[in-house]
């Protein structure tokens, strides 16, 4: 995995420089593009394993680049965005971004997100178990354990946990979960999800009010820690 190629699309030279250094230190190969057009061209000519896309590009709106990339490619995309624009973050995730990192960020955070995004999206048939700290979820037998003890989960609770486990380490928007668990007609009833999350936390967290496994991304969705 560490021979993976990362495509960095950013108009700021300095940001490209430190990103290149960081990913090369970690053993990745790096391609750079300084605007959207070049980025799309680069992604077409030499498809990367992961794209890091800065949303503040001068030549094109971030969402239109995402849409264009997603029209033909499934490559994981992490967007770099600024704080206090949760609605935009949700929109970008729904347009197909895999995750986002808020600027300014420490490099450790971005690398961790990149590794999570590079993990295969579908668990291998040989190892259907997702492990997060003391939590184990077996996607094949649809069951889970915490500290080795069997978890008793309601159907909705299991479904929510399964979706998060399939994206372990990555943010999943509330709407994505709502659509899969309750169906498209209940997209606005997000308090259902909050109740299920509260119940889940009581079962898997040491202190449900200070969660360490099932984390909230305020205004966006949930993330299973990795």
């Amino acid at each position: 995995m560490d021979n993976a190629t990362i495509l960095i699309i950013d108009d700021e030279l300095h940001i490209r420089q430190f990103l290149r250094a960081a990913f090369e230190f970690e053993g990745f190969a790096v391609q750079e593009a300084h605007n959207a057009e070049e980025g799309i061209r680069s992604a077409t000519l030499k498809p990367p394993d992961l794209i890091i896309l800065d949303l503040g590009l001068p030549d094109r709106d971030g969402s239109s680049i995402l849409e264009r990339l997603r029209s033909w490619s499934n490559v994981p995309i992490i967007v770099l965005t600024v704080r206090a624009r949760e609605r935009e973050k949700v929109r970008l995730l729904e347009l197909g971004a895999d995750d986002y990192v808020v600027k300014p960020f420490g490099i450790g955070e971005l690398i961790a997100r990149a590794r999570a995004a590079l993990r295969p999206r579908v668990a291998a048939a040989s190892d259907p178990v997702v492990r997060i700290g003391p939590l184990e979820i077996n996607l094949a037998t649809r069951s889970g354990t915490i500290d080795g003890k069997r978890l008793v989960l309601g159907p909705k609770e299991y479904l929510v946990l399964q979706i998060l486990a399939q994206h372990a380490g990555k943010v999943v928007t509330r709407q994505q979960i709502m659509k899969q668990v309750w169906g498209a007609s209940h997209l606005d009833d997000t308090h259902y999800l909050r109740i299920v999350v509260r119940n889940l936390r009581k079962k898997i967290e040491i202190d449900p009010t200070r969660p360490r496994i099932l984390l909230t991304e305020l205004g966006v969705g949930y993330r299973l820690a990795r």
Partner: protein
Amino acid sequence: MLKSLVLVAITTVALLTLDQFFALRHVTLVYLVPVVIAATKLGIIPAVIAAVAGGGASAFFFYPPIYSFLVEDPQHLIELPLFVFVAIVTGHLATSLRRQADLARRRETEVHDLYAFSRRLAAAHTPNDIYTAIREHLASIIGRRTILFETAPPGVPGAALSDEGQVPDAVKRAMEALAEAGKGSGNSSVVEDGEGRVWLVRPVSGKAGDFGVLAIDLGQQKGKMAGVIRERVDAVLADATAMLEHLDLGRALSDARVRSETEALRDALIGSVSHQLRTPLVSILGAATVISSAPGNRGDPRLASLADILRDEVDRLNNDVQDLLDAALISSKGVRLDCEWVEPADVVNAAVDRRQRLLAGHHLRVDIPDELPFVYVDPVLLGQALGQIVDNAAKYSPPGSQITIGAKTESDAVVLSVGDEGIGLVGEEQTRLWERFFRGQRGASSVSGSGLGLWIAKAFVIANGGQIEAFSEGADRGTLVSIRLPAREPATPDLAVSGDG
């Protein structure tokens, strides 16, 4: 006519049936019933017909000789014309009552429409909002498809303000010609669009100039009918124009234009400033963390702590930029909310987790009960408000002291609180704490800050329908800040969260 006769016939049959069992007297009076019904439902002419028919029916069926219109009894001879007279007068009264009721109802609708219209105008932010309001108002009172063209400033092509695709070319040309003919030309014209439909095209003008050009779809009607509709349209438009004058539409339009331009400028400025200030921060923090984690440097605690210093400073600068942006946003546009049902603990955790390093020197105690009600708020803004208060608690209390973040239910509210063991509040600090740019004198020299934080916190809490207050027992006795949020529970069917449905 037929309906009146049917009413009289029904009455007659009913009377004849009753007559089998009781010997009826004064049957003529009963015939007032169909007259009143005809008057209120059908109008005065049917009422008169019912009156005459009723008189005839009494003479024919009930006054001897029966089954003849002849009347023998002289008393009946007087009674019959008297009945017809009374019936007609009653009918007339009933009709005019009905007309008045109708009129009142229509007035009420019109006034209601007018209120709705002026409310929309007052809330309009762009000229387009205003034009749409005018068009829809006219369309609703005239009851026909209406299209409004904006009168453009000289040299700029006018724009149609509704589904232009449906406007026939001939009509479009006529509207453009009229718009170009200039101010106050005041002429209306009738245009045929080649598909058999007739359109009335006329300017909407006031003293201050033309508001626009209006095209109204008159449909297939030609000749006299079209003339009638046109007169009605003119009458309504005369009213509407007077009202538009009254509402000072011209000024409203230009105000709206200026407003939207100013807002666009401010947005652009805020966006650019934030971009300019933040971009270097991204590179500084990124490069510093790369250096400290580079192979060869990894595990060197001195480098790691230098990177931490950079991280803290960058966070602080970044927060200051955010404060400025928030402050600009609050004073220019007001706060825009994105509310949802929120787990209170999530907001507290977000505020605390983002400040882990700032709080590292303090003992942090988070005390949140398991079963707090959800609150309906904008979680991000509330998190920022709480974060500001936590920032202050950390800044104005000594290292090693305790900061307690709590949450509890209190009657119909959820109360989040931040308590510290810091310098507390004295004198004017108690009252001026929430003012913009206010900073207490005691901490000002040793603690950095913009004086915006608590002001922003208060604005965000109030925008979320909450209250915020600070309490202190005095100098060095600590401060307790509480945020009180209305608690309501969303309706949740049990099956929705437990079942497999």
